[in-house]
């Protein structure tokens, strides 16, 4: 099979990555500028959008407080990630690559996800307590199901020939999942990991917002009730930082992978 060249844009002068980076920075700069200017001009009530500078002022002034709460959130996110993504991906691969298991378990898993969990969270805490545990459990469940479903769907799209080849070489079920199904569905797995991770972050923060006495979500909800919008946005900045940190980690994994195979199984990057 002859592979096609990367996008036509790639050939022109500056590398595409560099151009994209510049473009992204321009967009981000525009957002930042708007964030500062729009509230100053009074186009949006301060309550909805405090200027960036006032937000940063709060962030710096209260950095100690934020740091303490951030640490709590980080721990909860970390624990929930291990469960939601680690377990979720392996389980998803297993479910997705085994026909009978898929038929038996997937409906149950997706039915579980159909229950609006957020609504039940207050009850949830009655069982799991009001400490970190309930947040971790909630966020895990919140992130787990999409991860499982996504990974399972990805595992389903892989070329059956490959698993058959591995089988002929005597690969055990686990070996097949680890060394064939997993790498063959890397794009979907990484995407599910991203998704699961983002959901875990959201889950932890939302749980903290709903009930807790610590964490970024707690601060956020407190500032929200107090109508302290610079505080609210400072907390959002921190949540974003969390997301960016997570994204960098995923990117590192991605690079390691694509570096070694250069999107081999995948696809050309040029537009249709």
């Amino acid at each position: 099979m002859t592979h096609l060249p990367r996008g036509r844009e790639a050939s022109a002068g500056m590398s595409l990555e560099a151009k994209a980076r510049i473009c992204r920075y321009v967009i981000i700069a525009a957002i930042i500028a708007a964030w500062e200017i729009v509230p100053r001009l009074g186009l949006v009530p301060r309550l909805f959008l405090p200027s960036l500078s006032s937000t940063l002022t709060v962030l710096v002034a209260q950095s100690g407080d934020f740091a303490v709460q951030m640490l709590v959130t980080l721990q909860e996110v970390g624990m929930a990630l291990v469960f939601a993504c680690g377990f979720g991906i392996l389980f998803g691969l297993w479910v997705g690559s085994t026909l009978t298991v898929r038929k038996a378990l997937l409906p149950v898993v997706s039915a579980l996800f159909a229950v609006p969990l957020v609504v039940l969270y207050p009850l949830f805490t009655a069982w799991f307590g009001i400490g970190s545990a309930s947040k971790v459990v909630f966020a895990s469940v919140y992130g787990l199901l999409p991860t499982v479903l996504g990974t399972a769907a990805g595992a389903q799209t892989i070329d059956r020939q490959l698993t058959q080849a591995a089988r002929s070489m005597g690969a055990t079920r686990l070996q097949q999942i680890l060394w064939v199904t997993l790498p063959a569905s890397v794009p979907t797995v990484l995407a599910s990991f991203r998704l699961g991770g983002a959901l875990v972050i959201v889950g932890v923060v939302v749980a903290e917002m709903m009930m807790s006495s610590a964490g970024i979500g707690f601060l956020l909800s407190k500032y929200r009730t107090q109508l302290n919008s610079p505080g609210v946005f400072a907390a959002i900045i921190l949540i974003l930082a969390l997301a960016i940190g997570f994204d960098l980690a995923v990117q590192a994994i991605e690079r390691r992978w694509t570096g070694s195979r250069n999107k081999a199984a995948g696809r050309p990057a040029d537009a249709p």
Partner: protein
Amino acid sequence: ADTIRIGLSTKAWFPSFVAEITQQQGIFKKHDINAELTVYQSGSEALTAIAAGAADLMSSNPSIVGEGREAGVNVKMVAMLATRNFGWQIMVPPKSGIKAVADLAKHKVGITSAGSNTDLLASWVKKKYGIDFVAIPVGGAGLVPNLISGNLDAVIIYPPLSYQVALDGNGRVLTDFSDEMPPHLEAGWAADDEYAAKHKDALKRALTALFEGVAYIKGNPDAVIPQLAKYDGVSAEVAKQEYANTFGHLSDDGAMTKELVQETLNLYANGKKELDASTLFDSSFTPVAIAR
């Protein structure tokens, strides 16, 4: 007819029922007012709606108004409904060893959310009794489940849920804030400054309607109590209690004084800010004269 959009800070808070009855009895219509009632998750959401231009009038109190003004939302109290927190209570499990408010020290006390009314009450209790305890935000929906499951040692709880909990035997009243606190402007109506300026007459008529609603409630217990039970989803007995404790004590004309406003600020200020009480209310709409 003039339209007025009324933001209600949670359905459970009694002003919501006042507005609802006024609507049901056609009193707004009688005053040529087209009222749109919207229930918000809490006072700050209702205030946000005012800021967003999605509401003109809201159920509120001076402390919320104060915070709103600080955040750039131009609202003022325009009428008063009550001077006490009727039915706002601290409750403990029936078999709890906590016998007095002072025993709460070092315990876990559930509040709805940080910065909310229950949070302010918790701070006030701490200050008054000179004790320290952990106030844990569990959301309105988390109070009772976590009290029952033992995750919390006590909760600060609002009516009529407080009556219901006591009646069900799920909790024991430790204290009622209407006994604990001196009279202050606890509940009333706050209007968007711009609306109040531009639609003075409509606002006046709306307030008249609302206080005619209060009069109707006060004058027709037999008709109102079942409605209250249905509205709150509680038993007739609880509705009766709430009716007696709360609705029996509502202001007839909405009139307020600077002292009452100031007292609210003193109670809830949390030692944080120096607000000028006179900027938080507009007494030009009160007393509301109603036809009897």
